[in-house]
């Protein structure tokens, strides 16, 4: 079977003249290795065709699409509330961030302002999603290099996050927690939620992060495997549309929470002059696998501080925007208790009724753990979107994989792959 082995000269890397390959004696017999689609180090289903010269990777061709399940086609038959269930299944490492981003875009299209209480809860959970995602990436990066302990250090606190998500939404893994103009439901009990979150931050996460850093930061083996591996420059990252921790590890100062603030990252989020949450955006300039690990560790700490700032200041008030805006599903008590609530409920639920958004196109984006996650919604004025295009950070970040691996050893491939934090369900959609 023959493969079109790409990338070639157009990517600016000439494999033949790259330094590390020149040191290697070319025996004249390059061979092709199939890495994946089923392989423990690929995390999910993706495949790399590697042309090897000895143990050096001469060319790398990623093949994706093994998990393609038509998510964007499904968006055209599901309404604005139903599609949230699909969205959480894209990046399943931080599903709650996807929910929040999706409904942010829908609300932007509809022109809805959400309530301050909803904003704070969404911000807290978006940061939880970031922690969840980064912990897996850090842990799995260690696992791919043989440090099983690091993986467990990362996974234990993730369990606690699942418990919190379970508590607020009723589902552990795929919360589907947001709705147009609000949330699925208010917190069952605010004090319990606060206690769970504080307990998680102060007892579980802070210990775990310290353990991971003690284990890896000065670990000879880890450093040898990560420093100088998979290097990316600032110009490359910009030209290849890279966002998120990958871009920030090369020195690009770009974070949508600062550049295009939304939720509680914007000033005056409650309409009464509240200040935006304070946090720093960690930047590294090395651009290698180790720099990405460091940026992620620092981001977890910044997320902890954001949650600490908000957890004691959850404003009281309704969770949904005013029901008379005709955009929000009424509460169950109103549906069963009043004729207006019942009518409003049916207006939104009947298949031939539903939302009446403007006939327009709208793009909204959030800074999620992997980078800029955005949805481009084309609306035809009906209850279901005409077309939804996801801007999947995994997909776009993965396109540089071939370039990063060339000239490295075969054993570096899992290290680089792990540092890109590819989620194949989002990659293939």
């Amino acid at each position, binding site marked *: 079977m023959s493969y079109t082995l790409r990338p*070639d000269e157009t990517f600016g890397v000439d494999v033949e003249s790259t330094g590390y390959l020149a040191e290697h004696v070319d025996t004249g017999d390059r061979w092709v290795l199939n890495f994946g689609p089923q392989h423990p180090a690929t995390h999910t289903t993706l495949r790399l065709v590697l042309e090897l010269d000895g143990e050096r990777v001469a060319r790398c061709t990623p093949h994706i699409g093994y998990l393609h399940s038509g998510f964007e086609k499904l968006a055209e038959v599901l309404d604005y509330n139903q599609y949230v269930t699909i969205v959480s299944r894209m990046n399943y490492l931080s599903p709650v961030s996807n929910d929040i981003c999706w409904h942010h875009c829908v609300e932007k299209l509809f022109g809805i302002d959400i309530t301050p209480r909803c904003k704070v809860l969404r911000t807290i959970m978006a940061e939880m999603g970031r922690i969840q995602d980064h912990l897996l990436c850090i842990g799995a990066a260690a696992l791919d290099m043989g440090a099983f302990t690091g993986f467990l250090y990362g996974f234990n606190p993730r369990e606690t996050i699942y418990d919190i998500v379970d508590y607020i939404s009723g589902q552990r893994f795929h919360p589907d927690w947001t709705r147009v103009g609000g949330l699925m439901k208010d917190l069952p009990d605010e004090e319990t939620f606060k206690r769970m979150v504080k307990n998680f931050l102060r007892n579980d996460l802070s210990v775990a992060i310290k353990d991971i850093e003690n284990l890896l930061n000065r670990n000879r083996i880890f450093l040898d495997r990560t420093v100088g591996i998979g290097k990316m420059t600032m110009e490359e990252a910009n030209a290849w*549309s890279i966002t998120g921790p990958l871009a920030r590890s090369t020195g690009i100062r*770009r974070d949508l929470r600062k550049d295009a603030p939304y939720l509680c990252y914007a000033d005056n989020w409650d309409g009464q002059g509240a200040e935006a949450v304070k946090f720093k955006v960690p930047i590294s300039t090395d651009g290698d696998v180790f720099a990405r690990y460091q940026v992620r560790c620092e981001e977890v700490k910044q997320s902890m501080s954001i949650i600490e700032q908000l957890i004691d200041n959850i404003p009281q008030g309704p969770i949904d925007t005013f029901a008379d805006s005709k955009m929000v599903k009424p509460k169950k008590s109103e549906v069963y208790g009043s004729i207006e609530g019942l009518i409003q409920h049916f207006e939104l639920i009947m298949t031939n009724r539903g939302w*009446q958004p403007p006939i327009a196109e709208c793009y909204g984006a959030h800074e999620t753990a992997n980078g800029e996650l*955005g949805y481009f919604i084309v609306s035809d004025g009906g209850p279901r979107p005409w077309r939804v295009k996801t801007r999947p950070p995994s997909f776009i970040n993965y396109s540089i994989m071939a370039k990063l691996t060339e000239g490295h050893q075969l054993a570096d491939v899992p290290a680089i792959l792990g540092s890109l934090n590819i989620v194949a369900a989002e990659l293939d959609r």
Partner: protein
Amino acid sequence: MTQSKPNLEHPTFKIVKDSLPASRFRATEFRGQSTLIVEPADLHRVMSFLKSDPRCAYDFLSDVIGVDYLGYPAPMPGRFAVIYNLVSSSRDDRFFVKVFLDPSKPTEGTEQDPALVIDSVTDLWPGAEWTEREVFDMFGIRFNNHPDLRRILTWESFPAHPLRKDYPVRGRGEREHYRIVDRTSS
């Protein structure tokens, strides 16, 4: 819901119009997002101008989006659209460029259509490679000068471009009729 009139005050509109007087443009805006509609033949020139001109400096291509408007309730200048999502990192500004294309052949299959071809921007932003491949895979819009225009999410012999509106959600039985490879024959 009432539609407000688009606000076409975005400074880039004027810069592009003044600097490229030979080209025809249209402009639209919604919720603060400005879109410049260009003719397919002008696309590469406009994109290259938007990237290099210091007043625009859209140095970051965030995404390439394909849309099919078959049966869309509002009148559109063409059936297919390709939308480029540009960001200027120095000015924190997002800007959209849109191209409309009309097919000249039936769109149910994968027939190559000379009307559905535009210039690739991979020479300006190498990151457009995969996003353009996705547009090709899903809508059958081809890109000139693309280094590696293959399907990306579906397989090579897939007999349709699935995000076109004339392709049914449940498919046309590709899964049921796919060739089965067993261990003895491979």
